[in-house]
């Protein structure tokens, strides 16, 4: 395990200390060691909170900033933050206008957010949630409630954060964040495994020369393991289920391709060329494309594709200014 760490059991705390030292313009500490808040939140707005396991950097903490999230709860690697952490994030984000908690559909996160909401209620903090379920590979469309959240969460934070920044009220922030993530269909391909420091050995295996289509962000199994195709065929294998999930034709879309960690960014752009060809061929117009390492899985190789259907309500929110470690517009 070739890692830059000290004690494998303290990786997250040690890293949080680094983020605080490196980026004081974005992060301020809170009463909870696993909660960071935006150092320069504007006042009088709905608080936007997210949280999740570590190992997905820049998610989740990289999306704390202007026009995005106000606080983040940070879990162990690939493991939900505690209820306490979510609660403290609610507290520091709340400015009396309520808190939108925007997170992904994982069992641990669901349970911890649920408990944190109960505790927040006792403190009269009004918390509403949107749970991202954009991974088309994790369940069929008619069982959307089972689907995992993946990189579509970024669009949820972007839109929810932009709505909060323009002082929309809590219900409106929630409505728009929900609309944003519902407009997203995502899928991942895994080309190699990753190693959690505390475990010290690869989390799963993908045989060389193969890829796992529909893999989850923690290596959850996908639809099938197939021989590694060329980039054009890979783009089609990813576009097929995504474009079948919603009717994107005739409209504008935002596209996000995120690397899973170790795949060079030039390959993500190479992949995008074929995705763009395919979308064009299907009469779908790309309004904007974000290509980079936006939501990773430690040092996995592979990528996720997210296509988001835009309308006149979502477009300005997707394009609105934002400033954080992960995205700047």
């Amino acid at each position: 395990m070739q890692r830059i760490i000290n004690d494998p059991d303290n990786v997250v705390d040690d890293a949080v200390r680094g983020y605080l030292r490196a980026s004081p313009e974005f992060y301020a500490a809170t009463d909870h060691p696993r909660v960071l808040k935006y150092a320069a939140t504007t006042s009088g707005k709905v608080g936007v909170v997210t949280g999740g396991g570590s190992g997905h950097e820049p998610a989740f903490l990289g999306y704390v900033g202007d026009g995005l999230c106000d606080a983040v709860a940070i879990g162990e690697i690939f493991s939900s933050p505690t209820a306490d952490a979510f609660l403290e994030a609610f507290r520091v984000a709340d400015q009396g206008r309520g808190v939108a908690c925007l997170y992904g559909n994982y069992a641990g996160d669901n349970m911890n957010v649920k408990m944190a909401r109960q505790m927040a209620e006792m403190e009269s903090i009004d918390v509403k949630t949107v749970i991202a379920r954009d991974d088309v590979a994790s369940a069929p469309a008619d069982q959307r409630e089972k689907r995992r959240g993946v990189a579509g969460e970024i669009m949820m934070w972007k839109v929810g954060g932009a709505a909060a920044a323009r002082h929309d009220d809590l219900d409106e922030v929630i409505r728009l964040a929900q609309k944003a993530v519902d407009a997203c269909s995502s899928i991942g391909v895994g080309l190699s495994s990753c190693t959690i420091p505390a475990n010290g050995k690869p989390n799963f295996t993908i045989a060389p020369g193969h890829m796992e289509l529909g893999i989850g962000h923690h290596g959850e199994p996908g639809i099938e393991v197939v021989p590694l195709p060329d980039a054009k065929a890979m783009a089609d294998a990813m576009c097929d289920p995504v474009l079948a999930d919603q009717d994107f034709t005739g409209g504008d879309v935002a596209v996000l391709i995120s690397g899973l960690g170790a795949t060079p960014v030039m390959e993500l752009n190479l992949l995008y060329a074929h995705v763009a060809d395919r979308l064009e061929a299907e009469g779908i117009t790309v309004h904007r494309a974000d290509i980079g390492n936006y939501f990773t899985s430690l040092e996995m190789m592979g990528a996720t594709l997210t296509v988001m259907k835009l309308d006149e309500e979502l477009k300005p929110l997707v394009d609105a200014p934002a400033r954080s470690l992960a995205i700047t517009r």
Partner: protein
Amino acid sequence: MQFLDTSHGSDILGDLVDVILDNRDYLSEVDGSIGDGDHGINMAKGFRLYSESIQGQSLSLAKAFTTLANTLMGSIGGSMGPLYGSLFLGMGNASKDLDTLDARTFGDMLSAGLESIQSISDANVGDKCLLDTLVPAVMDYRHAVDDDDSFTSALQALRNGAERGCESTRELEAKIGRAARLGERSKGHLDAGAVSCCLLLVRLADSTERHLERAAA
């Protein structure tokens, strides 16, 4: 009639801490075959933190369970924090105002723990998870009490139910947690959470029985 003096919380939970710390590597190994191999790490981390935080204090059973629950919920996160946290919080709340527990109120405490965990998780018996241990253990215990068995025999029923339930996970296909991704391939292995739950319930029964014996002596 047999009574458990609830002032022995630190003692009894000390036994639970021991069984988790002693089985840290075993639990991770069980998790390793169909999960991500960290169940022992996660559990040991929470139980050690609890143990360190109450160092030298003599707590009531309710206080000890509540402290353990808060430590798990506040420090380990993931799924185990809320699940075991809820279990022990439920048990702590149920025993809060009682100086002693008899076989029936001990059973009420177990049931409260089960209800608490069910309020946070949708998992069911048969999903290949810790409920496969917990549910039959609590049921067997309650049946024994309903049959007017002694506290000691009821505790034996608890052990038997836990062990049978835990063993039942070997042939189940996982419907929940990381192992669910393996589908058919998850068969043939014990579930890590079912194993930790079994270890905990058996040790709880052992520890309780020892206190009953001491009280009788």
